[in-house]
């Protein structure tokens, strides 16, 4: 919409900013809305853009929550949600696989993936701790490999 309909930004610009927002922490799309909003309208834009992005979906989700509170206990609803959760789970595996395959120098960086999974999924350590340690280690290795080129 930003690129094709309004011509507010070029496709390259959009991709660069999306890339940035994808590896900074926080909800990607909200980050992106703030960055784009600021770029075009300064502070008001940075406030209005994420609000505009979120208001509609939040209302829909709250409506669904109301429905869930009324009918969620029905066996049909339980089955329906189980089916969706299973699909969601599959989509997550696919996403992890795709992102994992996109990593360059896999033998160097995949061990950090394994460490993250061990810490988070198996040992259930607090994520801030795992991420701080992981980022320090993985980032240092990345810094070092970049210097060798």
């Amino acid at each position, binding site marked *: 919409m930003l690129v094709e309909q309004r011509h507010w930004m070029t496709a390259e610009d959009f991709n660069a900013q999306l890339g*940035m*927002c994808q*590896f*900074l922490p*926080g*909800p*990607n799309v*909200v*980050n992106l809305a*703030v*960055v784009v909003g600021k770029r075009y309208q300064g*502070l008001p834009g*940075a406030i209005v853009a*994420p609000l505009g992005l*979120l208001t509609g*979906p*939040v209302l*829909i*989700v*709250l409506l*669904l*929550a109301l429905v869930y509170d009324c009918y969620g206990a029905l066996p*049909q609803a339980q*089955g329906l*949600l*189980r089916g*969706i*959760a*299973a*699909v*969601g*789970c*599959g*989509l*997550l*595996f696919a*996403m*992890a696989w795709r992102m*994992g395959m996109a*990593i360059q120098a896999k033998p160097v*960086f*995949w061990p*950090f993936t*394994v460490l*993250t*999974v061990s810490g*988070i999924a198996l040992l*259930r350590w*607090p*994520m*801030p701790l795992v991420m701080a340690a*992981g*980022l320090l280690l*993985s*980032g*240092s*290795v*990345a810094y070092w*490999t*970049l210097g060798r080129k």
Partner: protein
Amino acid sequence: MILFELFLECALLSFVAFGGATALLPELHRVVVDHHHWLNDTTFTQLYAIAQAAPGPNVLVVTLIGWEVAGLLGALAATLGMCLPMSVLIYLLVDRWEQCAGRRWQQAISLGVAPLAVGLIFSGATLIAQAADFQLGAWVIVLVTTLLNLRYRTLHPLWLIAAGALAGLSGGL
């Protein structure tokens, strides 16, 4: 004060959400189910399913969690906690960050974060499977979804979600 706690927990989480809201699932579960006992496993996975099926960014799973924990104000507190602090920080830092584009340390961060994000998302998938206590039928759906999504990139996930919902509705899972 549960509203304040919700806000604070979500704000804390947003600062480590490398890889977006999906990467947060394991930690959300740890905080909401294991630590505070605000929700049980079943409700947690069901809220995840609703957020997955709903239009809009998947960060809205925290809106649902907030709603179940503390009603409308809870939903707002959780959503604001997740979005506001990081938005303010990004607003303040984005120009400086863009000035440094291409620097070695910045490339190192983006390179170094990727394998961690993959691990987080993989952990999120295993967590959902565990919390929902998937049996054989559900695992078949998981496998088929994974393969279809990887093989046919243009197939919209909504079709898969609809198919999964139907399979679940028929009661086989």
